Structures are given as structure tokens and as C-alpha cells.
């Protein structure tokens, strides 16, 4: 009778350990709650270990206990690895603002470069009337034009006085 009770204790411990280990495994894989799974993981390992020592004393079957112990250990390892996952993501998140700043600067430079070499053409049509304005924003052209204008005689020719 006493032996049967002991056997039952070992078996019950095995069942409890296996259920806890399975739940831990499912929880450990989900990143949101993965870190929390380390608590039931440790409980599963302890239950399985106690059950195994019971089983060794009473010479009862250990299949369920060994399965619970293995699943519990693997689940706890997965759960523990979530710490590293969180660490790596946090590390990457710190680098993101710098990278975003770099990208913004690059885009800004490119836009400015494009604008420097831009040709602008504006056409306005109203009925039969047409107005077309062509201008260039090319830095080189503008410098050349400025030099040209500076080289010309800049004295004001006022025609109104002559009249």
C-alpha cells in the first residue's frame, strides 16, 4: 500500500512537471511573454528532478519525468535567450536615430544637387495668348551670366531726359 502511494507521488509529479514544461515551451516561444516563462520553466525542472529522485528510490517508470525534464530545460533556455533578443533589439534601436539622420542628410544633399542643375520652364496659356518663361538654375550658367553682366557697361541709359 505504501509503495503504491510512493509510485503515485512520482507519477503525479511527472504529470505536473510535463504539463508545466509544455505550457512553458509554448510561452517561451512567444516574445511578448517569453521572459516570464523562465518561472514555470524552473518549476518544471524542479518538479521533474524531485520526481526522478522519487522514481530512483521506488524504482518506478521514469519516461514522463525524463520527458518533462528535457522539455523544461529546453523551454527555459529558449525563455532565457529572449533576454539576448531584447538586448540586441535595444542595441539596434539605439543606432536607428543616427541612421535616420544620415539618410535625411543624404536626401537633402541630393535634392540640393538636383535643384542646382534644374531647368525651369513655365508656360501660361490663356486663349490665344501664350507666355513662356525659360530659366535655368544651373549654378555655372548663373555665374557666367553674372560675369557677363558685370563686364557690360552698367551706366544707366535714361531715355526719358533726352525726350
Amino acid at each position, binding site marked *: 500500500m505504501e509503495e503504491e502511494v510512493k509510485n503515485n507521488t512520482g*507519477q503525479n509529479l511527472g504529470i505536473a512537471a510535463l504539463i508545466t514544461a509544455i505550457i512553458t515551451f509554448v510561452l517561451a516561444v512567444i516574445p511578448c511573454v517569453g521572459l516570464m516563462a523562465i518561472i514555470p520553466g524552473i518549476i518544471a525542472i524542479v518538479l521533474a528532478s524531485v520526481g526522478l529522485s522519487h522514481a530512483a528510490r521506488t524504482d518506478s517508470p521514469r519516461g514522463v519525468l525524463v520527458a518533462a525534464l528535457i522539455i523544461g530545460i529546453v523551454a527555459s533556455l529558449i525563455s532565457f535567450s529572449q533576454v539576448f533578443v531584447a538586448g540586441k533589439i535595444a542595441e539596434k*534601436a539605439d543606432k536607428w536615430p543616427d541612421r535616420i539622420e544620415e539618410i535625411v542628410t543624404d536626401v537633402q544633399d541630393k535634392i540640393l544637387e538636383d535643384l542646382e542643375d534644374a531647368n525651369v520652364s513655365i508656360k501660361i496659356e490663356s486663349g490665344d495668348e501664350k507666355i513662356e518663361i525659360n530659366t535655368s538654375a544651373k549654378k555655372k550658367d548663373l555665374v557666367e551670366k553674372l560675369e557677363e553682366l558685370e563686364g557690360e557697361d552698367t551706366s544707366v541709359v535714361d531715355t526719358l531726359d533726352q525726350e
Partner: protein
Amino acid sequence: MKFIKEPYLTINVVLTGVIMLIMIYSVIFSPDKDDYPVTCIHEKLTGEPCVSCGLSHSFSLILRGRVEEAYQWNVYGMRVFLFFALQLLMRIAFSLFYIRFTDTRKQLIMMDIIGSILLFLIAFRQFFVYLIKYS
């Protein structure tokens, strides 16, 4: 309480209870009120949402028949929900088979283990990928 002597049946009964609790949790807490008690530890630590964020919302929405919204909350929500739903059915079906067909119990347990592992890997594949990618 005859089933207590059968570890397989006990495990099945407890796991059925756990899955039922997940379903009840999803029904009780409303996605519109956003009153879920479980928050993402990962997001709290890193400030970045993880691959499983929005899973509770997704489950609640699936149970309310709002599948499209569920997909918006978490793309993998449906897959994980189907895993739990299938597991619930499997626990009941396998328990009944276990009681009825006493000669093929070992084969039944092996089939259950292999089937469950495969389903688990399919449903949680993306979570494993995420884990491997960042660890």
C-alpha cells in the same frame, strides 16, 4: 476519477482546461476597450514592438468574427489561434480514442506527439525565425 491513473488522459484534461482558459481570456477582454492585463515585456524593454504584439487583440477579434481586423493586429494571429483550436479538438478526440481503442494506445500517443510538434512548428515558425534572427 479513473482517468487519474492514466497520465495521458490527465495531461489531456489539464491541457484542454488551459486552452479553454485562453479562449475565455480572449472572450472576456474586449479589443475595443483595450483592457488586456498582459503587456509586452519585450516592447517595454526595447521600445520596439515584437512579432507577437497584438496577439491578444487578434484572438479576441477572431472569436468575435472580425477576421480582417484580426489580421491587422497580428498577421500570425490566425495561425496561432488555429493551433490552439486544433489542439483543443485533438485533446478531446485523442482522449476518446485512447479510452475506446485500448490496443493501439502507444501508436496513438506517438501520433499525437508527432502531430502536435509539427503543428506547433508550423504555427510558431515565424516566432522561431524571429528568435534565431535576433539571438
